[in-house]
């Protein structure tokens, strides 16, 4: 249902039984497998995630959940990934799921006939993959700098390629003669010397900067055509939404952590949670968490396998804006409200404030999305 003619646009929000089931399963899985102790044990590990837990996620079919049955997926659509990401965010569970899902969505949406794509079936079966998207720090850049020469040789570097160390496949976003193309590169073709590990502010994640220059690919490994540009646009919006869903979960957990501390810590003979200067910001965070959840599932309601329409674009951008602002504030206040303890590595608040900083930039920050939203909403 929409408020007709209103600048609010669509206000549809529904939640299917499939989504409810996925949310239920994902929440208990993440809670059991990703305790805070487990998260902490992985922070300074090389891989950043537990391969055994990833294997179990693959066994549950999560990498293929959003893919059509024709390529070996479960056919639940991308809306079913939203509750999974929320649950993972809540438990700070890492691993290459987000990267793999986005890579397969990009391929699915760019291919003329996805059912014939052998790689999609491989990804649905759980081979980790990732999109090499960013040419620079600017999420809003419209020009693709990475070039695919007429001879099939790539020229250019990508940064913040998420989960690059474990990805078996890279979907490299490049351009050829001014047209965007996707280049599929197997991990084995990217030498160690071309990779540099990033040091990320969010220690639950891993990424690399990769120089793809001089890698030669066969024509069969190039996806081109009219669907590529719109698939790339959708990728950025879906990325924004899934990161928003994850951030919503993280913000909820962050709030719980802070509230728990305020209920137990005493100063000047009083529980500090009784002070309004601490109480009221917690209410602001709760309201932000509530709004994030509403925007995120509103966006999920509007997603299909087709190119995202205007309402869906607005919804994804609002979700990312709200989630980003909420987690930033929640993490920031979590540190402050833990006092001296909050300044330590040992305090869990740091996990959230660090995640908040990674999250805010991923797929564009709040100002970026509000700028796009202004055009969508005010220039009608």
């Amino acid at each position, binding site marked *: 249902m929409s*408020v007709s*003619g*209103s*600048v*609010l646009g669509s*206000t549809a*929000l*529904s*939640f299917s039984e499939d*989504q*409810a089931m996925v*949310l*239920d399963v994902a929440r208990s899985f993440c809670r059991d497998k990703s305790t805070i102790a487990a998260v902490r044990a992985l922070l300074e590990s090389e891989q950043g995630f537990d391969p055994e837990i990833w294997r179990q996620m693959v066994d549950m079919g999560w990498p293929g959940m959003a893919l059509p049955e024709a390529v070996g997926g479960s056919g639940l659509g991308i809306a079913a990934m939203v509750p999974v990401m929320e649950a993972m965010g809540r438990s700070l569970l890492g691993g290459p799921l987000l990267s793999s899902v986005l890579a397969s969505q990009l391929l699915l949406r760019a291919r003329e006939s996805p059912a014939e794509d052998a790689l999609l079936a491989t990804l649905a079966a759980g081979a980790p993959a990732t999109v090499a998207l960013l040419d620079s720090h600017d999420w809003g850049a419209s020009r693709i700098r990475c070039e695919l020469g007429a001879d099939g040789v790539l020229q250019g570097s990508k940064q913040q390629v998420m989960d690059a160390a474990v990805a078996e496949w890279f979907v490299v976003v490049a351009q050829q003669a001014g047209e965007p193309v996707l280049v599929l590169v197997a991990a084995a073709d990217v030498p160690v010397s071309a990779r540099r590990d990033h040091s990320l502010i969010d220690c639950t994640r891993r990424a690399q900067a990769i120089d793809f220059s001089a890698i030669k690919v066969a024509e069969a490994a190039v996806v081109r055509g009219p669907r590529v540009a719109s698939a790339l646009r959708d990728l950025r919006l879906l990325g924004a939404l899934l990161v928003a869903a994850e951030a919503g979960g993280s913000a*909820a957990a962050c*709030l719980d952590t802070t*509230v728990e501390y*305020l*209920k137990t810590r005493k100063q000047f003979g009083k*529980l500090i*949670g*009784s002070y*309004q200067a601490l*109480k*009221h910001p*917690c*209410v602001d965070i*709760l*309201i932000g968490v*509530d*709004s994030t*959840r*509403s*925007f995120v*599932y*509103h966006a999920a309601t509007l997603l299909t396998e087709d190119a995202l329409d205007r309402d869906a674009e607005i919804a994804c951008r*609002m979700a990312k*804006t*709200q989630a980003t602002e909420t987690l930033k504030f929640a993490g920031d206040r979590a540190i402050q409200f833990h006092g001296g303890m909050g300044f330590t590595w040992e305090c869990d608040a740091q996990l959230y404030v660090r995640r908040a900083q990674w999250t805010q930039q991923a797929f564009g920050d709040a*100002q970026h999305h*509000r*700028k796009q*939203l*202004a055009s969508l*909403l*005010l220039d009608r």
Partner: protein
Amino acid sequence: MSTVSEQDKQAFRQEVSAWLQANKPADPGFLLPQSFMEVGSEQQLDFLRAWQHKVWNAGYLGMAWPKQYGGQGVDPVFQSIADQEMRRQAVPICFNVIGLGWAGPLINDIGTEEEKARYLKGILTGEDIWCQGFSEPDHGSDLGNAQTRAVRDGDDYVINGTKIWTTMGNFAKYMILLARTNPAAERKYDGLSFFLAPMQVPGIDPRPIRKLTGEYGFTETFFTDARIPASCLMGEEGQGWKIAMKTLQYERGAEAGAAGGLAFVRIVIDDMIQQLADVERDGAPVLQDPAVRDQLVQLIMEEKAVVLGDRRAGIGPLTTDYPFSLPLSNKLRFTESTRRMRQLAINLQGADGGLYVGDADSRQGGFWQRAYLNSFSATIGGGTSQVQANIIAEHILGLPK
């Protein structure tokens, strides 16, 4: 749950929509109240009373109330549809809100036969205006601490004390009154009683309060040995707090028992964007200013979040964390975002922002200036935002008092 078919609902919606279109009154040439808390003149009162009577007479008010008391005795979903259409078409308010949304549903719910026969119809027709006597000058947010005294004396109660923020106190025929019958009660709440009190008796002196807008709409109501019949007591002595809390549940609309009608003129962000269409800033349209656009998008999101929150509140699996957080925070979010929106509306008018109601050059007759000043009635009335935040922190998050 309503058993009315979608087809019947649709047909009714068309019917009421057509009636409103045909009967919506023309601009009377004087400022109309944006809410029931702004009725300050006889002129406004006469206009609004005539409009409410017309709506009732057409059968679109009190639809779910029993027929013998002036209602239609139909499923409340019809009233909800009528309310939605009234809102959509931005017709004038049904001003007798304390009667329609508080006293009436309460009497309908727990009143005696005699009380129903005596009060309900006059509420619907607009003939009997009701006001509310809960708040006191020294106990704004702390309602349970009300000190106005009611002392039984033969067949009367003798009332002494002061109530404040009595809407239409100077026009009202009846008041729902919360007064202390037992100051010695162990719990302060147990000493309170609830009355359906007449206003036109000696010793009751409603003095209009001039609001920050320069207008009237409320009174401070002084009781000096005012005698009201003992039969005005609702329920029993000591049940006042329980009954007063019960009146709050009808706010959720016709489905909860309210008679319906429009209590507020809805002012939405679209209205604000529209009024900015011809405004310039730094030599260019204000709607093209990047900083302004950023602020507008934030406000649009705030308004949309409230609408989406209402929808999500009805989806069980998406409200498991804190099941009551959306309904309990709704007032805080909505009123605060409304206040910010109206404030920005003035901010963006350039020099016109400094003009007020009465100035020929003011935008929309000073609509936004007045609307902003009035918006505090919602962030203060019914529990200030700060008290709301305490309630949410303590009851939802479980933080200590």
